[in-house]
């Protein structure tokens, strides 16, 4: 499936959409498919500091609990309240379901992330195994 080009991707299957100095983070469609029915999302509190590459929460499905890795460093400004009541929305629309918004600390970190095309290639290789 074509991945939205308005954002960047990580090898841990998170997406990050930038708007000036703030960014929105979620997980990709490939991630939700692999996880299965999502029942719970554990997110950090507003004000928490995220460090690029470090875990900042978890996504729990009926068969696994997966760590969420921060695509970039920054301070959490908003957490999606929908996740608490309707975690299944992440399954039905992964790219439309955001998890966390943050103020970026070091926008330069994004240069190291994957473009939509690179991510699509990466996923195709992963799926091929």
């Amino acid at each position, binding site marked *: 499936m074509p991945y939205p080009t308005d954002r960047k991707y990580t090898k841990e299957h998170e997406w990050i959409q930038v708007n000036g100095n703030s960014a929105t983070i979620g997980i990709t469609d490939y991630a939700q498919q692999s996880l299965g029915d999502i029942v*719970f999302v*554990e997110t950090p509190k507003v004000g928490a500091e995220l460090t690029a590459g470090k875990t900042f929460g978890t996504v*729990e*499905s*009926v*068969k*696994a*609990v997966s*760590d969420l890795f921060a695509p970039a460093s920054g301070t959490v400004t908003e957490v999606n309240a929908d996740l608490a009541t309707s975690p299944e929305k992440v399954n039905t629309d992964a790219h439309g379901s955001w998890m966390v918004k943050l103020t970026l600390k070091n926008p330069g970190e994004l240069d190291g992330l994957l473009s939509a095309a690179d991510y699509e290639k990466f996923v195709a290789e992963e799926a091929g195994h």
Partner: protein
Amino acid sequence: MRYLPKSPADREAMLKAIGLRSVDDLFAPIPAEYRLTRDLNIPRQMAESEIVDFFRQRSRENGEGYTSFLGAGAYAHYRPVIIDSLISRGEFLTAYTPYQAEISQGTLQSIFEFQTMICELTGMEVANASMYDGSTAAAEAVMMAVRLTGRRSVVVARSLHPEYREVLATYATHQGMPLSVAGFNDDGRLNLKELEKAITPETACVLVQSPNFFGTIEDVAAVAEIAHRHGAMLVVSIAEAVSLGIVEPPREADVIAMEAQSFGVPLGFGGPYCGVIATREKYVRQMPGRLVGQTVDKQGRRGFVLTLATREQHIRREKATSNICTNQALVALMVNIFMTVYGKVGLKELAKQNLAKTAYAAAQFAKHGKILFSGAPRFNEFVVQTSEDPGAINSRLLGHKMVGGLPLKKFYPELGNAALWCCTELTTRSAIDTAAGLIAESERSMRSSSVASSKEEDVEEVAR
């Protein structure tokens, strides 16, 4: 437990099917120099009648008809006969873990009922399907608090069972969790000033036992206030489950880690026992152990299932809530049946009897020895201090077919000749009176021997 052996004909057929001539041929891949070429040095096999005789003789070597005044984490309570007759049923005795809900509704329902009753007794919102025992339950509850708070150090009350503290230390040492110990007052309770001093911004939780190792009921509300004010959680350990029949449960606790052995589990030389963790719903995802949940199937019928299993060892691995991935199902079932048979009214009555007998015993012993920690309420255990070494007194008690209280010198040397005594509903008045009488004798002889030696000194003085 039945054993179904294979006949020589069965063996022949199996060997033939895989093209071998003897069982020895199965070990051919092992190099000859490593193969044992003689019989093992074990006694010959016995006939069934010889085996029965052998064990009868061994069991006669055990003491029978003794009255025990021991407690300290393992309690002698009456076990209703119905417990063993029910748990011996094949459906319960040999059933495996209920991973496949469709064929395990009976097992799952019984565990769900167990969890529910534990919640009702402890005032908590959710309980797990059991842990190994009270000591590991306490250690696991502490690690749960460490995960939930993100802090690493722990403050432990010295009035917590010394062996529970040892178990916790084993975990703590290898997981980089600094432990500090806060002492107890003259009334046997955790010293709140020491507690305040010991808590730091790095303290994940305070661990206290109530009724504590000395049988004294802690001021849980006061401990909770201090812990919570510093952002630490409160874990309360309960070793004598029968206390819940009359003592207000520690509702201010964030996590309760208990030992349910008192509820129908035999003393069994130390195990198997039944730990349980009970906590608030908001912490359920960090609670270790199995959890049974109630749900509905596709046809809307009620059903039970193992839930939140993704947090467990076999899926989450090093990030799991525990390295333990099992429970004490059969032992928890004994606890379940006990709680059901006694019920709310029965448990309260049971607790009252324990309380009454212990109060009587303490009053009798107080006439001759010193009862420590009298400034605070106690349940079914108390500490007696005597002039003579408790070990010597206990040797004399053995002659009357009684096992005396646990000498405390090795755990609390500053208490001198002190011993921990426990009375349950099974302790008779005459046993208490006899024990009190022996303590009286001990005190008298200690006094007269000290009087005699001082008299000797007087005589020497006069002689000079």
